[in-house]
């Protein structure tokens, strides 16, 4: 055989290989016109402005690329591919904590589980969040000596979920959590406590019983027993913290009954878990938290929550810090919709004792919003909050509101190493603009003005206080920018910036003496984070 002939034969091999490869797998998606034309005169149909598609037509694949890759490479069968792809919406295989926590925190494509070919009755999920954040001019008493230097940290949060039981009536869930933070500017002056660090611990560990159709009534009921996290109502009093690097969890019993999307009642008796930074978290029998919470969604314009929460926290040696409260509250709201007004009113009242003094405090919240029925559906929202403060420190009455186990990032500002403002001794008006260029992107700008409700009481949990009240109550104002991009349920990015124009309160001699040097100067905060879930 000549050399030329040999080359011909060799060239034939790849062509032969290419020619006999199997056809590309079936693709699923939608046919859409790639561009949208806005009519010269607005056309309104069913209350919504009409956009006219104007081609060209393109086929957009709507399949999850990772599942599709597994199928196309033969790693999973077609049948399994369809089964896992269908596990959305009503077909979601809900984990055992579905009625305890927000769905967006626990629902993602289980790539790892699918890749390992695990059965539906077994759940396995991993989550890792990395963030870099920094702020300057610390103001907290605990941060002396801060000297105005920036506090820059890299908080890392890793979680693993392991569940048994699928959609069945008896289920089990373990969720491990590891939160740690690397200091980039040295330990001195850095903000570091159990809200940032909780190494290698158990976040959830419980057994659950679910009954879908109690005695043929169509009602669903769930019982949970063990360690759990909870998101209740709008999360102002009880939350599974998300932005914060660590989360509250509770040991005890939780019961829920209701009709999906119509009403539900929950009741619980738990011991809040005492987080420890480097040791295993602890239970403490001297802390008990209990309550009942009703949610009704019968009328879209008039959705209603009503709740009672009890707390008996006598675990610390200092009697002055004992908390024995009853908290009563109610919430009326309407969810935002394009072209409609929306609102939220929450009122909360606290009675009981703080130490040996009587405790009477309250919190009032108002949101008024409007979502414009145009592209990107901008929503303009006005906020107002009032959380009572102690009028006369040292008297027989304590009036400083306690937000219990609530979250703050969703309406105040990022928490983590930042978050100066609490629902305690505060009043604050403000506005926020939220736009959604597409379902994957959310952009926000917010502006709020902050005042102490009572000038003689503490400022949040900063440790700052002027018992004379001469420092006034002006805490300043802040402007916040935030951008979120969810590539899909498994990968998202979040970035934000806040500038806090500090008020005259921080320039008073009393407060200046308590703060780190430079604490009265305006503070800038920024963060960038990535979360991946498999």
């Amino acid at each position, binding site marked *: 055989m000549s050399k030329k002939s040999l080359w011909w034969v060799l060239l034939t091999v790849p062509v032969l290989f290419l*020619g006999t490869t199997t056809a590309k797998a079936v693709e699923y998606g939608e046919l859409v016109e790639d561009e949208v034309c806005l009519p010269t005169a607005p056309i309104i149909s069913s209350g919504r402005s009409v956009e006219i598609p104007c081609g060209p037509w393109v086929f957009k694949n709507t399949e999850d690329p990772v599942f599709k890759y597994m199928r196309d490479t033969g790693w999973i069968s077609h049948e399994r591919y369809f089964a896992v792809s269908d596990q959305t919406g009503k077909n979601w295989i809900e984990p055992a904590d579905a009625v305890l926590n927000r769905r967006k925190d626990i629902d993602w494509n289980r790539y790892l589980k699918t890749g390992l070919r695990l059965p539906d009755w077994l759940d396995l999920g991993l989550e890792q969040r990395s963030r870099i954040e920094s702020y300057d001019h610390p103001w907290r008493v605990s941060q002396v000596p801060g000297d105005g230097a920036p506090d820059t940290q890299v908080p890392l949060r890793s979680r693993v979920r392991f569940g048994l039981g699928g959609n069945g009536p008896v289920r089990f869930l373990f969720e491990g959590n590891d939160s740690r933070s690397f200091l980039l500017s040295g330990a001195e002056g850095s903000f570091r406590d159990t809200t940032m660090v909780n190494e290698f611990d158990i976040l959830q560990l419980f057994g659950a019983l679910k009954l879908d159709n109690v005695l043929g009534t169509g009602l669903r009921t769930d019982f949970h027993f063990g360690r759990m996290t909870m998101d209740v109502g709008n999360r102002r009093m009880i939350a599974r913290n998300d932005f914060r690097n660590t989360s509250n969890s509770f040991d005890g019993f939780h019961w829920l009954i209701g009709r999906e*999307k*119509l009403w539900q009642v929950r009741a619980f008796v738990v011991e809040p878990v005492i987080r420890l930074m480097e040791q295993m978290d602890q239970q403490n029998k001297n802390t008990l938290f209990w309550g009942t919470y009703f949610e009704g969604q019968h009328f879209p314009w008039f959705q209603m929550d009503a709740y009672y929460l009890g707390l008996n926290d006598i675990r610390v040696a200092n009697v002055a810090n004992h908390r024995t409260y009853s908290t009563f509250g109610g919430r009326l709201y309407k969810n935002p919709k394009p072209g409609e007004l929306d609102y939220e009113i929450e009122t909360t009242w606290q009675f009981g004792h703080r130490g040996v003094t009587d405790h009477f405090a309250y919190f009032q919240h108002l949101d008024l919003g409007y979502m414009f029925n145009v592209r990107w559906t901008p929503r303009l929202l006005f906020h107002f909050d009032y959380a009572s403060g102690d009028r006369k420190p040292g008297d027989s009455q304590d009036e400083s509101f306690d937000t219990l186990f609530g979250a703050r990032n969703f309406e105040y500002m990022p928490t983590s190493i930042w978050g100066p403002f609490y629902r305690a001794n505060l009043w604050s008006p403000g506005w926020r603009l939220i736009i959604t260029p597409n379902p994957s992107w959310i952009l926000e700008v917010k502006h709020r003005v902050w005042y102490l409700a009572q000038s003689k009481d503490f400022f949040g949990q900063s440790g700052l206080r002027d018992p004379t009240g001469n420092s006034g109550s002006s805490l300043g104002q802040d402007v916040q920018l935030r951008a979120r991009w969810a590539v899909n349920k498994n990968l998202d990015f979040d970035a934000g910036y806040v500038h806090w124009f500090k008020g005259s309160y921080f320039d008073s001699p009393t407060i200046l003496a308590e703060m780190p040097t430079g604490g009265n100067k305006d503070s800038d905060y920024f963060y960038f984070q990535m979360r991946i879930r498999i």
Partner: protein
Amino acid sequence: MILRLLTACVVILVTMAGTPAFAEPVLVAVAANFIPPFRELAIEFEKATGHQLKVAGGSSGNFYAQIKHGAPFDIFFSADAERPKLLEDEGLGVKDTRFTYAIGRLVLWSPNADLIKGVETLRAKQYKKLAIANPKTAPYGVAAMQTMQKLELWESLQPQIVMGENLGQTMGFIESGNAQLGFVALSQVMDAKFKDKGSRWEVPTTLHEPINQDVILLTKGQKNPGAKALLEFVGSPPAKAIIERFGYELK
């Protein structure tokens, strides 16, 4: 020289053998209720012919509007017989390619395993709400209405009837307990999620007009060999077996 010629022939033959992989894909519009069986059909079709499919699932009404607006679908599997006929009359579908690929079956279903004993359950009215799809928009709603009219229950059941905009919403009413039972498609109840759950009464086809689901080759697909092959494949015995297994009847 002979070796070169032989090699060239092999190359040409092999390349030809692989042509389906590079042929124009078939763009298929499939009514949402038929997506589960179509997935299996697509796999078998691809194995048998090598043609590539691009599948869009959705409501027949939307597809009809899209096709009229110039959407370049090759073939349309509708949830009814009306829209394919309209497309044919409007010159957007190829004449004499339209046929009934499946006949939907209506079923009275409840998640409560003890509730439905048969037609007597419907007559006894021992339930608060009965869900049906809106007869104005859904063929299965029309069939439910005809069934109750034939049983002389349509008027008396009016206070208890709740209407979903489509079959999915109707099933949602029943699933959530807002209605204790309802008329849905047998193919929905055959889904893995509901199979062997609850109680049901399969409505005899004598009680309502047949729920014919028609397919039609569209003018854009006339020159696509894959589209014609798919149309033929749907009428083949393996395809019919899959369709029947998902709770549909055949003509």
